[in-house]
């Protein structure tokens, strides 16, 4: 059994026993109310220097409200899990909140080019599934998982992966280090006050991200009664004990879509792409984030009731999204 090759990138240290001890000390197994405002949740649970994972992205059932809150609170030096993202990486880098990214995919633009040119951004190379698999390893409490891709690519060389001789087949097999982020942000359709959360429709790695992470903030379109959770336990995607904060966030995925609940605000979506493309994140933040103490204020004043009603009406498909 030999290590045949290894990538050279730094990666978050692999420490399953340390993660267990964190869980033991910091995660409550009691049913405790966890409702917080977005402001409080980010202030308490997102620290400068944290490794941050969010599920889905700013445009598709992502925790967009918390990404804006992170920018508002000027968090610094975040390390991003860049799986299946579009504009979020660009926004967080353009706003100078992030300095490292494990890359699966992100929408590229001058905001990112400039950060690279100025030496403000390190990129380590993976791919989407490889990142969700690293999260799965983290969510299983394991140090690593094998994977049948990444091997042979230049991404492999600039990652934390290793090529080993499989002790069962004798053949080469790639393994990737478990990922246990400091903090996970996950937007869901419904949650109760304890953090039992329901996602409807497809997702990227919401369950894995929550279970793999030390601190977990759930934003939920609807807060539902625990009675409802107990009446259909098969619909629970994330159990309460993995969750530290629950934020009631109707339109929390705005300007993105929250499938089954509302469509995206296409004009705003294009504006996001523009901000990242032409290095205009500061202006974007000046318009959509900094003038407002809370996201709700932005939704009220800048988007308005009529537009929001329209976005709800645009989502004509509800099959499969209402239990």
């Amino acid at each position: 059994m030999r290590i045949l090759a290894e990538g050279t990138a730094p990666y978050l240290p692999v420490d399953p026993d340390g993660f267990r001890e964190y869980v033991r000390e910091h995660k409550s197994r009691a049913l405790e109310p966890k409702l917080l405002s977005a402001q409080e949740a980010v202030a308490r649970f997102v620290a400068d220097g944290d490794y941050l994972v969010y599920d889905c992205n700013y445009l598709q059932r992502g925790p967009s409200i918390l990404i804006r809150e992170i920018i508002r609170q000027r968090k610094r030096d975040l390390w991003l899990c860049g799986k299946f993202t579009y504009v979020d990486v660009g926004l967080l880098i353009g706003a100078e909140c992030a300095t490292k990214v494990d890359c699966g995919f992100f929408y590229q633009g001058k905001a990112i080019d400039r950060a690279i040119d100025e030496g403000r951004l390190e990129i380590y190379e993976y791919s989407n599934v490889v990142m969700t698999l690293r999260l799965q390893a983290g969510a299983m409490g394991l140090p690593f998982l094998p994977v049948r891709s990444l091997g042979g690519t230049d991404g492999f060389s600039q990652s934390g992966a290793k090529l080993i001789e499989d002790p069962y087949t004798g053949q080469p097999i790639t393994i990737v280090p478990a990922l246990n982020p400091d903090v996970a942000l996950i937007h869901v359709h419904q949650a109760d006050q304890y953090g039992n959360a329901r996602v409807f429709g497809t997702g990227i790695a919401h369950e894995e991200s929550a279970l793999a992470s030390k601190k977990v903030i759930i934003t939920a379109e609807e807060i539902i009664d625990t009675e409802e959770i107990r009446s259909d336990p098969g619909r629970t995607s994330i159990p309460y004990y993995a969750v530290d904060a629950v934020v009631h966030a109707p339109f929390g995925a705005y300007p993105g879509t929250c499938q089954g609940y509302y469509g995206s605000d296409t004009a705003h979506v294009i504006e996001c792409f523009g901000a990242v493309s032409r290095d205009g994140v500061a202006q974007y933040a000046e318009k959509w984030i900094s003038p407002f103490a809370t996201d709700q204020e932005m939704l009220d004043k800048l988007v308005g009731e009529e537009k929001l009603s329209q976005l709800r009406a645009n989502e004509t498909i509800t099959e499969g999204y209402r239990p």
Partner: protein
Amino acid sequence: MTMLEVEGTKASSFNEREFQITTVARMIEDGRSYWVTGGGTPIFAILLGQRRYAPNAQYITEDGVIAPEPMLPFEPIMTMVASRPSYRALAWGTMNTAGNHAQLGYMDYGILNGLQVDRYGNINSTLIGSGKEMRHFGGPGGADSIAANCWRIILMTDQEKRKFVERVDFISSAGFLDGTPNARERAGLPRGTGPWRVVTPWAMYDFDDERRMRLIAIAPYVTVEEVLAECEYPPQVAEQVETLAVPTEEELEVLRSQLDVQGQATGVRSGWVTLEGDKYVRQTGD
């Protein structure tokens, strides 16, 4: 000889992107499974293929949508984790669902885009250039897993000199790597997989016994010389280079009125082609 000819009324006017999509749509094999990247031309190719030729071809997307009957058209960007593309699926999962099923060998074909491709079918979607001139793009997304695990890979890219190179600036998704026998297996990738076809708006390539990219067919509106002029590194050329059939009116009707109604895929960097006399001619100045 004409390749991929289908029944229907030959269109007298179409753009090159439409030509590329209809070409791939005709390659869709009925009863097979496709892992397609959510955005761009691959999804339109499988949707068109299903509608015209392969009603029992099925596809899965990176967010774990299995065999949907999507509500068309999609909204801009909203091709995954959104209700219209997920509509009437047989199952909803997550990215690891798609990844695991592909690792198990359930995905017959993968259809991909890429920035750059090299003579061994390696795909770059990460960065172009090196040193000070280096520019980072978006990364492989799901393409690395698709390219590694699907049985056959179809790459859809543009026919541009800087895109067909000897060695890509960065291997984001594995082709035949250095081209030596079993290079993929030595890198831990599944046995018997690899690039299968490359389709551009001008041409189609396969891979020869030595895993080198080979030109096998061209569009009727270009010559082999024109194609080769748009390859920085010259591919192998088949003894007989065939001519690809043009889109039919019936295909264009579906593509334009049901699929890409906003011209998102077909409008991008694409020249117009018209029938002049008995010849299809590219309109220059595009």
